[in-house]
């Protein structure tokens, strides 16, 4: 038995037979109306939420009404909400609009709508939303990939050893660390790390702060791999701690389930070395549930972590979303939310496929 108690198998994958391609197509087709529905709900929520994009447009915040009127027209906010949604979805280049506010719809609009790849422009910067996202996305993927790599490199052995040496000093220490790791807020830990490694400790060689306070690299300096790594250490550490704690606890629990199974006892009885039993038989099966967890966390790879990016001045997606939310930048908000929804749906599909790939007993309908 590979599955321990409490490790649920997705119910829709139980039956035997089926074909991966057909399954993926079917799930993808199901995702389309779901995404549409999500977009309607999100559009309504984003627009109905109190406050508007113009109120945060300037320092005095009390915008001259004439200016507000012009901006609303330029943003299309002067139209009823359903019309705004239709324009967001399919554009307005097929309909006449009143661009100059004289009450006469004299020219065709310029928007193509997201169905034709036009996510609009940011209310704040007037730059195309997709361009802004593409500026930030690689930075987030870069940070999060390294974070996930560190998490798995550390969490898997920690979880495994903790399970094998249950109730040992190591296990108790890891358990304590796990609770602390999950309880400490990322932004607080980030600030503490900066306090210690940036303002507190100095490099004995240069007299400069031991580690940089943020950013991706030293500005105006030649490329250096070590410089890149130095800039990664604090944000990765602040972010990875909680995840390492979480993943290692989960693996510990999964391993404990697995190592008490009959087939492990059989493997030992066959005279296999303990390391072989653990790494080739136990760990392989214990890792399977982690696929689900990773699938749930996969969207973070693209959406980033708001607080980490704020504290460590990392120009990623999390900050982009946060700023858009604060300033009610509707097109930016809608784009990030809908893309995130798409990624979550895709991750879920990916998890289901990976499940069946890893566990031969699971087949697609």
């Amino acid at each position, binding site marked *: 038995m590979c599955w321990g108690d409490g490790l649920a198998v997705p119910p829709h994958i139980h039956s035997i037979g089926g074909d991966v391609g057909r399954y993926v197509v079917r799930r993808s087709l199901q995702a389309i109306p779901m995404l549409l529905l999500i977009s309607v709900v999100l559009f309504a929520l984003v627009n109905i939420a109190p406050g508007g994009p113009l*109120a945060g447009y300037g320092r005095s915040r009390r915008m001259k009404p004439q200016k507000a009127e012009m901006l609303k027209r330029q943003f299309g906010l002067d139209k009823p909400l359903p019309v705004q949604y239709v324009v967001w979805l399919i554009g307005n280049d097929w309909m006449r609009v009143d661009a100059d506010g004289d009450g006469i719809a004299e020219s065709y609009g310029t928007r193509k709508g997201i169905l034709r790849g036009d996510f609009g422009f940011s209310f704040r910067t007037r730059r195309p939303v997709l361009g802004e996202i593409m500026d930030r996305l*690689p930075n987030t993927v870069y940070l999060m990939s390294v974070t996930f790599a560190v998490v798995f490199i550390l969490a898997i052995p920690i979880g495994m050893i903790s399970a094998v040496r249950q109730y040992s000093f190591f296990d108790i220490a890891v358990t304590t660390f796990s609770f602390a790791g999950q309880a400490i807020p990322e932004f607080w830990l980030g600030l503490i790390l900066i306090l210690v490694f940036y303002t507190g400790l100095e490099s004995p060689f240069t007299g400069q702060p031991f580690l940089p306070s943020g950013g991706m690299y030293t500005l105006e300096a030649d490329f250096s791999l070590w410089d890149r790594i130095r800039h990664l250490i604090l944000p990765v550490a602040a972010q990875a701690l909680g995840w390492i704690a979480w993943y290692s606890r989960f693996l510990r629990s999964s391993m404990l389930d697995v190592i008490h199974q009959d087939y492990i006892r059989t493997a030992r009885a066959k005279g296999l070395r303990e390391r072989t039993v653990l790494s080739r038989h136990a760990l392989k099966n214990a890792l399977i549930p982690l696929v689900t967890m990773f699938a749930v966390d996969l969207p973070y790879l693209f959406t980033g972590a708001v607080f980490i990016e704020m504290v460590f001045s990392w120009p990623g997606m999390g900050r982009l979303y946060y700023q858009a939310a604060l300033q009610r930048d509707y097109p930016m908000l809608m784009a990030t939310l809908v893309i995130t929804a798409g990624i979550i749906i895709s991750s879920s599909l990916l998890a289901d496929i990976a499940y069946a790939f890893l566990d031969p007993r699971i087949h697609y309908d």
Partner: protein
Amino acid sequence: MPRNRSLKLLTLVVVFALLFISLTGCARKAEDTPTPTPTVEKVATAVPPTPVPTPEEVATAVPPTAAPTEPPPEPEETSITIAVLQDPPSFNGTVTDTGYELMVQELVLLGLADIDPWGNIFPELAAELPTVENGGVVIDEDEWTMDVTWKLRDDVYWSDGEPVTADDVVFTWNAVSDPEMGIWAPGADYTGSAERIDEYTVVFHYTGVYPAYLYQFGGESGPHIWPEHYCDAEQGFTAWDANQEPLSNGPYLLKEWVHGDHLTFVRNPDYFEEGKPYIDKIIIKVVPDPAVLHAMMLEGDADVEMWVSEMYLAEYQDAPNVNVTFSPYGRWVMRLIPNLAKRGSIDPAEPHPILADVKVRQAIRMAIDVDTITEEIFYGYPDTVWTEMFRPPYDVCDISRPKYDPEGAKALLVEAGWTDEDGDGVRECHGCPNAEEGYPMSMEFAIYAEYGEELELAQQLIAENLEAIGFDLKLEKIQGSIMWDSYEAGGLEQIGDFDLNMWDDGYPGLDPSDSLWSFYYSEAAEPDWGWNVGRWMNEDASYYIDECYCLDEEYRQEVFCELAKILDEEVPQILLFTAIDADAYSTRVEGVQATINDIVTWNVADWKIVE
């Protein structure tokens, strides 16, 4: 051993994956660098009057190696870092007004004239300031219109070598005033058209008399001048690409903009002021967390910080490597806005049961201990303010500061018909003019959430002051975007859904006319027309506000003082103190001066490094 080989292989794969990821991230700088390429390319390919090196050339210039004699050593490149909390939305400070776009706009674009922290107006692109005396301003007394003639310098060039001419000024105004893609800007209500007279002369025809005409194209919120040959008129003023990739006529050239991370500027070798700017390179680094930004200033990794909060000021003043500069005058006046109309109504004829009575408003003003607020909560930095005419050139009115007098306030409330007959500590209406008998003196007191903890503490202290004289206040903290949204969108103030609010506002420059109009003019009480959200109607005040739209300074002073008297007696708003306007800068930098009339980089060409 196959198992060991697998492990080694796995280890190698992981190491290479990590290296690859790091390298991919590293490669981003090179990929991202040329965001503002059009600007940079234009600098490189155009033929300027004198050869203009590209920013890259400026940055990487190498002295000739085959020189017969050893060349003198190149002076070391000077560079400073300005740390900011947000990425600037663009380089166009007329469209948005977050302050960050103004900061970068000052580096690359000039206006016709600008205004210094002490209120002196000085020409930038203009050869001289047009005035009535020098014939630059002609007023038609019958029509009450005016023409302003600007003569431009003929030695200012765009960074692609094209001269800055009257065509650019006319183009800019036409783009700003375009009903489709333009934007309202200060003075737009009075400016009819712009006319090119010759290559370096332009006339603005006004439909009224606009006192702030001198810094209408420059200063903080006035449009700066944009290049006609570079900007795409079809894209429009608010959306053209030049807002992100500007062509410079200012002291610096944009070299690189990595969005969300930093902007790099290099000095403009053809800047019209000989020898300026003094600093070779300016980096604007985005540091979203104020605590981290503060640490960077103290560690010397940032050289300038704009808008330092009170909390950090004391620490900076003790730091050996950081200086603090204060604006000579305050601008953002913290004020209480009483709603004189019935809550939820926009009809001034329906009085607020408590606040419509001027005696109650006067009592509130007398009961607030402003000094304690400024000393205890704002670290003693703010200046106390009790009249709109508190700064030059109109700080000449004889308006004495109201006394902090809780007993006097209580007496006024009794006089107004508010007494506490049931002994619960809250007064009720017993003969008051606008409420039913027994109506309790209970109401809501709101602040905006974005200001931060200090304002919350101030709210609590004011509430204590008012509760001590018999008010019952329900304290609220509301997001500014909700409080100040339009009438149509349900903005609480515009729809009249408030009792007593507190926020800060003020005007840049020298002329308070538009600000006074917005706060106190009767028509400005119309929804979405102005910010007279207290619905205060006073014909005399409106008359004086109309009168202040003239250029006779003596008369204006008289008019403003008459208005100040009315405001002092009627108390449509209760002014408390000015929020500070301070910037911090490294001791290795010289010339930084905070201003309320513009942004910290207003004189960036004059900054120097003093090692």
